[in-house]
C-alpha cells in the first residue's frame, strides 16, 4: 500500500497510535536507564545533566555485598557453554535427521516432536533431586549439562538443512568426501543463518532464565545475574538508583545482541512460531 495524498489523516493517526504504544513500551526502560544515573536523593525528579552520576554502577560493581562481577562471569559461562553445546550437538543431529537415512531415524524425530509439546516443568523436580544426589547443586554443571542440546533448535536446524540441495552432497561424494567430511565441509559452512538464529534465541533464553538457576543454585557466589538482581531487589528495594543500575547491567547485553542480530531473531521467531 503506497501512501497517497488523501491518506494523510490516516497516516497521522497511525503514527500517533504507534507513538503512543512506543511510549508505553519505552517508558519503563528509559526510566530504569535515567534513574540508574541518579543519586538516591534525586530519584523521581528531573535533574540537570551535569548532576548525573555513575555512582550506582561503581558501587554495584565493586561492593562486596553484591558480587556482581562474579554473577556476570557465571552468567557468561553458563550462556557460553549452553550455546556451544547446542551449536555442536544440534547441527550434528540436524544433519543426521535431514541428510542421512538410518534405522531408527523416524523414532528419533518422533521423540523430538513429542518433547517439543511437553512443558519442561514436568522434569524439574526429578532433575533437581538427581542434581542433589549427584552433589551437583550449586555448580555450573547443574545449570548447563541438561540444556546443551535442545529439541526446538534441533528441529529448526533440521528444517534448514532439508533446504540444502542433495546435489551438493552427491557432488562432494564424487570428490571423495566422507559423510562426516561432508558435514564439516559442506553443511556447516552453509548453515550461517540457522546458527545465527540459534545463537540469538538461546542467548536470550539462557541469559534471562530464572526458574532453573534459582532452583539449582542457592549459594550467592554461584548466582547468575537474574537471580542476583532478584535478591538485590529484595534486599535493597528502597535504593532505587542501585537496583535500576542492576536492571541495566542485566539487560544491556541482551538488548545489544538483539539490535545486532534482530533480523535472524525475527526470522527464527517467525519460522519456529509458524511451523504448526
Amino acid at each position, binding site marked *: *500500500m503506497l*501512501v497517497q495524498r488523501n491518506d494523510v489523516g490516516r497516516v497521522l493517526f*497511525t*503514527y500517533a*497510535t*504507534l507513538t503512543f504504544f*512506543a511510549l508505553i*513500551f*519505552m517508558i*519503563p*526502560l528509559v526510566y*530504569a536507564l535515567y534513574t540508574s544515573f541518579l543519586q538516591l536523593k534525586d530519584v523521581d525528579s528531573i535533574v540537570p545533566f551535569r548532576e548525573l552520576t555513575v555512582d550506582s554502577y561503581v558501587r554495584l560493581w565493586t561492593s562486596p555485598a553484591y558480587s556482581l562481577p562474579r554473577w556476570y562471569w557465571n552468567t557468561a559461562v553458563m550462556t557460553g557453554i549452553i550455546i556451544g553445546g547446542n551449536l555442536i550437538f544440534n547441527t550434528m*543431529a540436524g544433519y543426521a535427521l535431514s541428510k*542421512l537415512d*538410518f*534405522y531408527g*531415524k523416524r523414532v*528419533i524425530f518422533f*521423540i523430538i516432536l513429542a*518433547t517439543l*509439546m511437553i*512443558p519442561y*516443568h*514436568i522434569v*524439574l*523436580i526429578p*532433575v*533437581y*533431586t*538427581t542434581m542433589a544426589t549427584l552433589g551437583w547443586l550449586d555448580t555450573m554443571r547443574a545449570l548447563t*549439562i*541438561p540444556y*546443551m*542440546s535442545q*529439541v526446538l533448535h534441533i528441529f529448526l536446524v533440521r528444517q534448514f538443512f532439508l533446504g540444502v540441495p542433495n546435489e551438493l552432497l552427491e557432488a*562432494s561424494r564424487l*570428490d*571423495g*568426501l*566422507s*559423510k562426516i567430511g561432508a558435514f564439516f*565441509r559442506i553443511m556447516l559452512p552453509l548453515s550461517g543463518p540457522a546458527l545465527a538464529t540459534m545463537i540469538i534465541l538461546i542467548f536470550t533464553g539462557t*541469559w*534471562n532464565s530464572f*526458574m532453573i538457576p*534459582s532452583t539449582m543454585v542457592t549459594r550467592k557466589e554461584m548466582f547468575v545475574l537474574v*537471580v542476583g*538482581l532478584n535478591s538485590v531487589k*529484595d534486599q535493597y*528495594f528502597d535504593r532505587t538508583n542501585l537496583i*535500576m543500575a*542492576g536492571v541495566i547491567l542485566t*539487560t544491556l547485553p*541482551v538488548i545489544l545482541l*538483539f539490535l545486532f542480530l534482530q533480523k535472524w531473531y*525475527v526470522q527464527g521467531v*517467525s519460522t519456529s*512460531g*509458524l511451523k*504448526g
Partner: protein
Amino acid sequence: MTDRPVPVKHNRYSAWSDSDTFVGWLFVAPFLMIWGFWFFRPFMLSLSRSFQDVNFMDLNAARFIWFGNYLDILRDPEFHEAVLHSLTIVVFAVPTQSLLALLVAIALNRKLPGRGVFRTIYSVPYIVSPIAVATVFMVLFRRNQVIVRLLSTIIQTPNVTWFADVNLALPFVILMFIWQQTGFFMIIYIAGLQGIPDDLYEAATVDGANPFQKFRYITVPSLKPVTYFVVTVGTILAFQIFDQIAAISRYGNLGSPAGATTTVITYFYQHGIRYMNIGRGSAAVVIFVLIIMAITALQKRLMAVKE
C-alpha cells in the same frame, strides 16, 4: 562455502564408518544421551512419583498410593484458588495481547517510513528478562508514583503499592505479562500479514470495498491460522507464568501477598521443590501438563479444520 577445491581422498564408499547408520547414530548420540538422562528418565520418574507418597528427605521410603496425590490436590482449596488465578491470567491477558499485537502489526505492515524503529521498540520488551521488567514495574507502581496516581484518577484504582495489594497484585502480574508478550505476538502477526497476497486487496479495491470491509473479509480470515497460534501459545505461556510472580513474592514467599498470585505453576513449585513433597508436586505438574497438552491438541485440531 569453501573457495578451495575439495581435496580428493581415498574412496570410502565401502567403509562401515561411512555408512548412514554409523554416522547417523554417532551424530544423534550426544542429543540422545542428554535427552535420555535429563529428560526421558526424569519424565518417567515424575509420572511414577505422582502415584507415590514420597519425600525428598528419604527418596527410598516411597509408598505407592494410587491416585492419592491427585485426589488430595483436587480437593485442596489452595489448588482451586491457584487454578482460578491461572484462568484469570489467561482470560485477561490472552485477548488483550492478541488484539494489541494484531493492531500494531497491521499498522506496521504499511510501508511507512520509520516502521523499522517502531518494530524494534515493540520487540525489545520481549527479549528483556521478566525479573528485570518486574523490578522496574514494582518501582513504577509504588504508592504515590505518577502512574499509580494517574490510574487512580482514570480507573479509580486505590493509591497503593500494586504488588503488595491483595486485589491489585494479580492484575499487576497480568499487566507485566501483556507488556512483555505483545511484541512477540506482533512479530508473529507481521509474518502472517506478509503471507497475504497483495492481489487480494487490489481485487477488493477494484470491487469498491472500504478499508473496514477489507479487514473484515480478507485480513481476518487469512490470519485465522496465525490467530489460532497466537491464542493457544498465548494461553500456554500465560499458564506457565512464573518469573514475574517469583519477583513480586519478596523473600521467596511464592504467591504473595497472602496467596493472591498463586497459580498452578507456583502450586507445583511450592509443594515439589519448597516443601519437598515430591509426590504431591509431581502429581500437580502432571495435571498442569495435561492441561497444556489439551490446549495444544485443540490447537492442532483447529488448524487441521482450516485445511
